[in-house]
């Protein structure tokens, strides 16, 4: 879906288009937690963007719209931050940057996250970035956030670089 993606940064985290040399890193970055929540993973991963910190690839972030439960103009967002870089706020920053991308460069009006109820780390990310609870999908918790304008964001959303 993402045909055009411009690199974005908040000063700490950068999300940028994927390059072919990133592929082995994305596969090597999968760990047990990845497989628990994301399944086996593709042999040819092509996420929307690579998450980079200080020149190091630390994960990826992606969105798609081809899900039956998604309303028109809504996308489902997924991400993986590699194990050594978790619990540093990088997922929240990446998600904030992706929402900014959706707002300024696409017609998407709603970003959605499906989170396993046992995935406490992602539940924290959703709350921090201002996603709000929506009806469950196949036993997964759903959180949504409008992408229309920054002011539409829930209270916890803010400029993380400040």
């Amino acid at each position, binding site marked *: 879906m993402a045909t055009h993606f411009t690199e974005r940064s908040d000063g*700490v985290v950068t999300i940028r288009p994927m390059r072919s040399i990133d592929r082995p890193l994305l596969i090597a970055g999968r760990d047990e937690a990845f497989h628990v929540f994301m399944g086996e993973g593709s042999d040819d991963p092509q996420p929307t963007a690579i998450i980079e910190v200080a020149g190091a690839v630390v994960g990826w972030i992606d969105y798609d719209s081809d899900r039956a439960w998604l309303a028109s103009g809504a996308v489902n967002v997924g991400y993986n931050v590699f194990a050594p870089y978790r619990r540093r706020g990088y997922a929240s920053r990446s998600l904030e940057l992706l929402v900014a991308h959706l707002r300024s460069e696409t017609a998407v009006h709603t970003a959605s996250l499906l989170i396993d109820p046992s995935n406490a780390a992602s539940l924290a990310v959703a709350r921090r970035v201002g996603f709000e609870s929506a009806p469950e999908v196949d036993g997964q918790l759903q959180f949504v956030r409008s992408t229309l304008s920054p002011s539409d964001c829930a209270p*916890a959303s803010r400029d993380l670089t400040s």
Partner: protein
Amino acid sequence: MSAQFIYTMHKVGRFHPPDRQVLENITLAFYPGAKIGVLGTNGSGKSSLLKIMAGIDDGFTGDARLTPGFTVGLLEQEPQLDLSKDVRGNVMDGAGETVSLLAEYEKVLASWSDPDADYEKVGARQADLEAKIEAAQGWDLQRTIEIAMDALRLPPPDGSVENLSGGEARRVALCRLLLSEPDLLLLDEPTNHLDAESVAWLERFLSDYSGTVVAITHDRYFLDNVAKWILELDRGKGIPFEGNYSSWLEQKTDRLDREQKQQDNKQRTLARELEWVRMGSKARQAKGKARLNAYESLQAEAEAYDPRDEKVQIYIPPGKRLGDKVIEVSNLSKGFGDRLLIDNLNFSLPKAGIVGVIGGNGAGKTTLFKMLIEASGGSTGETPDEGTIDVGDTVELAYVNQSRDILNDEDTVYEAITEGHDTLTVGDREVNGRAYVASFNFKGSDQQKPLKVLSGGERNRVHLARVLKTGGNVLFLDEPTNDLDVDTLRALEDALERYPGCAVVISHDRWFLDRIATHILAFEGNSQVRWFEGNFSEYEEFREKELGENAQPTRVTYKPLAR
């Protein structure tokens, strides 16, 4: 933070009762980020200076102040550890602030699971903590700690600190201090109890250190490679010099020349070291080889030499002439407990060979030493598990059992060295006892000092004097360079260069090993011991080629012992 100076001293003096003015009227200002090496003989007030700068000695006169807003940290010669914590706990204390930030961050993360939490406040606090942790490069704290603990070869992280040796405790304290990253880092002999590889790591670390470093050290490679200033303490005065050790040596020699002290023996020793500094690496290597080929002339010179003719600083009496076979080690293996320390070692010690023994603590250096001494006629009780040590008929051992700890603290320096004899038989010559003691830089009333008041360096000089008077043609020295001031080190190097026999020396002092060693016996880990012809720099070059330039020191490993 910008400030012209991080620390200033104005007319600082320090008097140690009853009669020692160690520092006198010292006025100095230290630039932020400066790397300063402190030189001076034992007892010249180096440690006193650092204690004043660290704010733990207020018994001085004059003004001394750390510029407000800066932090200071000191590695003392005998640092205190927190006995209620294990090794890792003590190290983590150094990163206390970052550890606290990370602990609070974990709490903040957990509060997102609390449905009643004020998420706006939680998010704001999390962002604030992330910024602070980023700034402190705290995310990689665990990895940083692991690297530092490995590089300084710390004891096991979960072990108690109560029963650590002095050297282990110092390494733990050094690691803790480096992690605390004070703006002004004060180090009193930081390289003591570190092996050569760890010293090289510390050198790189301190070169890149953003704060000010003031280090008392006898490690002349550190002084050459890290220090941009040399502060010389001499008879209470502080004499700063902008430059590294080699350039300080140049100007010092020039100054003594100008003062027309060419005949002074100390000046000649300085000049010989300067000559060595000016040599290219090939000439240095050739020097070692020349020594191996010049046994006959070395022996002849030593036999013709009369130490009464000039006041040598240190004199090692030659033993009787060595035959062709000195020490031949074949297929030697040795275990300790369930570990294999040495696996199939072979070497042949040549006449005039000086062997530097290097390797991590606990690698087996002292065990090998003891086996060589036992085979050479000493009594250490240490023998190989497998293989042989074949000692030539002409070998006479020069060794004193590691006696720094068994010296009687109530004895004076003179009594400890001369054992009450006014005239000493040093080798096959009669030497005046007072003159012999003076040659180890114990002049006048210093000879009457009881051992219990001596500094570490002074005790080591007593030990050396006792070892070196025994005579013999194969000399064994265990860490002779620890705590010695640079003057004494230089004199010892000169004495070893003139000595016609063989020497086996455990040392981590790279400069010392480069100047004297014809061979290196390196404990490289995993029970491998390498016999290498060449000095320490040549060995290091060889290892870098073998391992790659980024080879980091790691903790000592052993093969399991399969008896």
